């Protein structure tokens, strides 16, 4: 026990001495919460749509009013000719244009009116959103028209969003950040710490002492577990106080799953450091294996359901994917039973830990 503490104390001093890395490790998670919480906004509020009303009748004015009456489009710029649409797209003044053709009013009376929606596809996600939005406006106007004509639409859908009624993106993003931060601290930093010691030759010096490899590993890893837990708590607190991310379920359960995920991240970091010939390789490998997939493939930002089939299989093999389901379940839904995810995480932890310890032993002969 003395020996483990001696290693842990020394490792803790390394962290404290390296002020810049410490600042990054402590501040980066906070900055990430604030940035991601504010930037990754799934809803677009400041859409600007150009309106070219070639009809100018009462009916077209009604349509235009319906378009701008919800809060989504701040501004509808009135255009005076078709050439202004392209100019508007090029200058980035508008993201879409609604063209009401001449004779819209009469066509509508005959029941076969058409309006044109033009979308700037340069920014694909904005384009998709604005197109969807304008489609919805048209559907709404159609429904009103049918009702005025004494006809009811055959059916309508009423949407109610549960667990995150305002679709606030921070609620969605903060659990993902917990996974990202834990991966960063526990996998990236530990793999760097162990590889650095191997490179400096101090690991061999330590091995001439009676301390066992297991004691070295546990001691080295302890300060990073503490740092990871601290960062994790900061991300959750920032999410709660700044963005009002709810905590529907149990904190204890959340902490337990975080601990399980930390074990997985540490095993990954250990595996990487055991297999890497140098510090540079270890850093690149840790980034490639832990950070990138967690950011892109875990469902943190991009929905897994919209990925191509083979990639979805890769997603399912990532610990972060299952951890995220659990986190969102606990925090947003108050769930407490995750048989599938728990099994997946426990199996991954066992496999990675076995592999890591085996290759670490091999490395030390």
């Amino acid at each position, binding site marked *: 026990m*003395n020996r483990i503490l*001696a290693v842990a104390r020394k490792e803790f*001093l*390394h962290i404290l001495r390296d002020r810049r890395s410490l600042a990054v490790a402590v501040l980066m998670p906070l900055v990430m919460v604030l940035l991601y919480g504010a930037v990754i906004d799934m809803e677009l509020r400041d859409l600007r749509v150009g309106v070219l009303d070639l009809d100018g009748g009462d009916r077209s004015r009604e349509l235009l009013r319906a378009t701008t009456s919800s809060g989504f489009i701040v501004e509808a710029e009135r255009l005076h000719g078709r050439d202004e649409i392209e100019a508007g797209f090029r200058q980035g003044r508008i993201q879409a244009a609604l063209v009401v053709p001449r004779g819209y009013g009469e066509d509508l009376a005959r029941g076969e009116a058409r309006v044109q929606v033009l979308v700037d596809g340069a920014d694909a996600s904005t384009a998709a959103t604005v197109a969807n939005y304008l489609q919805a406006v048209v559907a709404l106007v159609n429904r009103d028209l049918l009702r005025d004509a004494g006809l009811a639409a055959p059916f309508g859908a009423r949407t109610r969003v549960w667990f995150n009624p305002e679709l606030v993106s921070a609620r969605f993003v903060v659990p993902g950040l917990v996974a990202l931060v834990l991966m960063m601290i526990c996998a990236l930093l530990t793999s760097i710490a162990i590889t650095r010691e191997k490179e400096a*030759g*101090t690991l*061999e010096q*330590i091995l*001439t002492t009676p301390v066992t490899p297991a004691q070295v590993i546990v001691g080295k890893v302890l300060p990073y577990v503490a740092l990871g837990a601290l960062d994790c708590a900061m991300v959750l607190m920032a999410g709660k106080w700044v963005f009002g991310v709810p905590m529907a379920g149990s904190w204890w359960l959340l902490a337990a799953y975080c601990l399980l995920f930390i074990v997985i991240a540490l095993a990954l970091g250990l595996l990487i450091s055991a297999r890497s010939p140098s510090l540079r390789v270890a850093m690149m490998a840790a980034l490639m294996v832990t950070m990138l997939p967690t950011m892109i493939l875990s469902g943190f930002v991009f929905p897994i359901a919209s990925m191509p089939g083979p990639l979805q299989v890769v997603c399912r093999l990532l610990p972060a994917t299952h951890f995220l389901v659990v986190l969102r379940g606990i925090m947003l839904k108050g769930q407490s039973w995750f048989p599938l995810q728990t099994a997946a995480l426990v199996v991954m932890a066992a496999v990675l830990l076995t592999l890591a310890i085996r290759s670490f032993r091999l490395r030390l002969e």
Partner: protein
Amino acid sequence: MSREAAVFARGLTRRFGDFTAVESLDLEVASGEIFGFLGANGAGKTTAIRMLCGLLPPSGGEARVAGCRVGRDTAALKRRIGYMSQRFSLYEDLTVLENLEFFGGVYGLGRAELAVRADELLPRLGLDADRGRLTGSLPLGYKQRLSLGCALAHRPQVLFLDEPTGGVDPVARRSFWDLIYEQAAAGVTVFVTTHYMDEAEYCGRVSIMVQGKIVALDTPSGLKARTGGADMQDVFLRLVDA
């Protein structure tokens, strides 16, 4: 032999694939002796030391160090020896005292014991005034003395020094050897490799290794008499070239 040798090896061998790094090493070093373990680069000195320290399992033969069987009682062996490698592995971002406390700590020393030991060792190493200094800012000679201190923190019976004085000036080397003598006088067995032939003269007995085998083992004066060399440098060159 009434007293057991501090370091004893018979037929100690290490092979890496087809290559035999150490071939049938025989030696016996008494307690409190300073034993010089010489040889050209690649002669197998470091491999032999790594085996004796329990870092590398032997492929054949037997050895005992401080009463522990090499390759068997590894945990007990490691508690009784100190090892200072040629790359003095200190943590540059820790202070002198923190380095000493860390190495004492991994040997299992408690806080109180560590404090006593630090107060004993640091003045003797001439590092008392620097205990709060970051190791990275120390001159090389100081680092070597600190490295020796770290290997001594747990009061080992046998001290293995693998080229401890590489790269420092003669004055620093002299003061380092004063420390080695002090340890030997206190009963610690010192097993040292070196490239400096003047240092070989300081040893009680010297072995010279060529291509994995010991070709000569005697006192420095005995070796000079046998080979007709004027000094150890001469003796070494005659034996290695032969």
